């Protein structure tokens, strides 16, 4: 049994074996082991609820894999919103013929990430599609978190607030694109893919002055800043010189003609905070390896939702949302 067969998704013996021998074991979850139709879970009064699907190709990339990503993605969504992540559901859509070994690796990585993040996998499902109708492994995760007293609200953002990014920008997007066929970069760029609740939850608990946090995944930092600015009906002024980048990510982006501000991040967050606590918040984030390059990158101005960037030369330009996937260009 070294490849995924259609029968692994038919609900019969092979499905059961897959659940018992891979998922229950790798996820280490007692609730999952009960194999009920649903999971009874205990949570605080108000809960946060989020879901995300993962279709990344390739499924293994420098710095992570689709399993780690699927866990970290939902954990981070719950965290930046303002909740303590508690439970996850995990659904696999597998392509017939996918090596069993790949599935085991992905499940193991997902299980390890969940244990690191302190979330329990409470429910799951597996379906298998015919060869060619999927791309090896797709994962959907949904998650439940306990709401915290303070949580993300765009209307709390005030003129004069500080904008913080928790570390180097664009690592995930650059790691993925440099592995794509036809690009073939040899680099040590690693995805930043990681759960961040151990940084984010204590921040919510310690500082009332945090207005909003968000994770700049697809569309990158630029798109996320624009979304927040429009929701807050404020202008943002970003100082290009303050933006933290890994020099390799910057070079890779330049060679391919891409703007690293639009590359995805999977282990970063943006925080808009009261300027009075910005220094403390940055210092707190920097204590963690995932946040060692955290920095204040700009400030909130009166306005109606423009994101302005001051260039090192002193000129100004606007940032907008990503319009369609960034493609390598030569012109």
């Amino acid at each position, binding site marked *: 049994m070294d490849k995924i067969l259609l029968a692994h998704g038919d609900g019969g013996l092979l499905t059961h074996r897959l659940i018992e021998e891979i998922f229950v074991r790798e996820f280490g979850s007692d609730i999952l082991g009960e194999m009920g139709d649903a999971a009874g879970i205990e949570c605080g009064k108000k809960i946060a609820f989020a879901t995300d699907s993962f279709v990344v190709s390739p499924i293994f990339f420098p710095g992570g894999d689709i399993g780690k990503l699927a866990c970290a993605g939902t954990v981070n969504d719950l965290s930046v919103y303002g909740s303590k992540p508690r439970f996850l559901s995990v659904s696999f859509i597998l392509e017939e013929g996918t090596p069993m070994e790949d599935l085991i690796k992905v499940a193991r990585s997902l299980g390890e990430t969940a244990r690191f993040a302190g979330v329990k996998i409470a429910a799951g499902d597996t379906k298998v599609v015919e060869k060619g109708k999927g791309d090896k492994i797709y994962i959907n995760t949904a998650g439940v978190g306990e709401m915290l007293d303070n949580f993300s609200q765009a209307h709390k953002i005030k003129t004069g607030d500080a904008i913080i990014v928790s570390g180097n920008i664009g690592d995930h997007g650059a790691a993925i694109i440099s592995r794509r066929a036809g690009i073939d970069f*040899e*680099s*040590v760029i690693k995805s930043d893919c990681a759960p961040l609740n151990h940084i984010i939850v204590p921040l919510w608990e310690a500082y009332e002055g945090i207005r909003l946090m968000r994770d700049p995944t697809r569309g990158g930092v630029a798109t996320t800043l624009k979304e927040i600015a429009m929701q807050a009906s404020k202008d943002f002024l970003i100082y290009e010189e303050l933006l933290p980048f890994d020099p*390799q990510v910057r070079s890779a982006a*330049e*060679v391919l003609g891409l703007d690293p501000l639009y590359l995805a991040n999977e282990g970063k967050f943006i925080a808009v905070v009261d300027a009075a606590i910005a220094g403390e918040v940055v210092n707190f984030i920097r204590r963690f390896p995932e946040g060692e390059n955290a920095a204040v990158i700009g400030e909130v101005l009166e306005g109606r939702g423009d994101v302005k960037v001051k260039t090192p030369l002193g000129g100004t330009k606007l940032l907008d949302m990503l319009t369609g996937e960034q493609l390598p260009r030569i*012109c």
Partner: protein
Amino acid sequence: MCLSLPAKVLSIKGNLAEVDFMGVKKEVGTTLLKDIKVGDYVMVHAGFAIEKISPEEAEKTLKLWEEIEAAGNIE
């Protein structure tokens, strides 16, 4: 119209060279630029080295500017 960036030549093998764009390495074609050696800096466009960068000229341009500036020449 044409994106081209400087890269350092790390090794040469037939019609291909491995180059380094400040930390990112890539194999590029050398068909358009025969006379290169390891350690040279070249401009790369669409996967090919298209010209060698002259260190002398690179320095001279900046020096010239600095001289003009020092002379306070606003002509």
